[in-house]
């Protein structure tokens, strides 16, 4: 989870001769949140469990849609504005399944995978979603 994510390599990996559509979601570090400037993000994961949860999500996507190949990568550590914390790529024969499966993976990842994001501002820092 420590290596930079190469978008092209991810797409090459999911493409198959049977693929007609690939949907790729790329999360990027935004320079602001709720109008406040973000300096950087710090990601932390409970890595063995995070891998297991991501595998579960992938397995669910394969059950729900006719997915050909699916890739999900999430980084940990310090990420600057413009860097890529997460990339999900899904290949299918038809595009609807690719869009739906890709969105399902990112939506579910954000709900269940033990990864935490700290937003670092000029004047402080916040663990995202920690408090009501």
């Amino acid at each position: 989870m420590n290596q930079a994510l190469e978008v092209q390599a991810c797409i090459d990996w999911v493409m198959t001769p049977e693929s007609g559509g690939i949907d790729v979601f790329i999360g990027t570090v935004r320079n602001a949140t709720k109008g406040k400037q973000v300096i950087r993000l710090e990601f932390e994961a409970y890595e063995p469990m995070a891998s297991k949860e991501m595998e579960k999500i992938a397995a669910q996507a394969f059950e729900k849609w006719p997915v050909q190949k699916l890739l999900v990568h999430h980084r940990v550590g310090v990420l600057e504005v413009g860097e890529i914390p997460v990339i999900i790529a899904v290949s299918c024969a038809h595009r609807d399944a690719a869009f739906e499966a890709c969105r399902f993976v990112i939506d579910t990842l954000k709900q269940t995978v033990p990864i935490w994001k700290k937003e670092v501002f000029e004047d402080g820092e916040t663990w995202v979603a920690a408090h009501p």
Partner: protein
Amino acid sequence: MKIKLLAFGIAREIFGASSIEIELPGNTVADLKFSLEALYPKLKALASYLVAVNNEYAAGDLVLDIRDEVAIIPPVSGG
């Protein structure tokens, strides 16, 4: 029983360590949460937190074993 806990994110900051040991009067996940909240009242201010046992989210009635890998999972925020 004595249980070793892993902690991440804000839970790690609340405990002041990425791993702590805690002595439990009972042996379930619910007992663990009760004891933890008494020792670390800031946990109660979180939006929620879960306990994972051996890399799986655990319900309150799960009985803990001294060999389990137990982790405190504050609200996740990946992506």
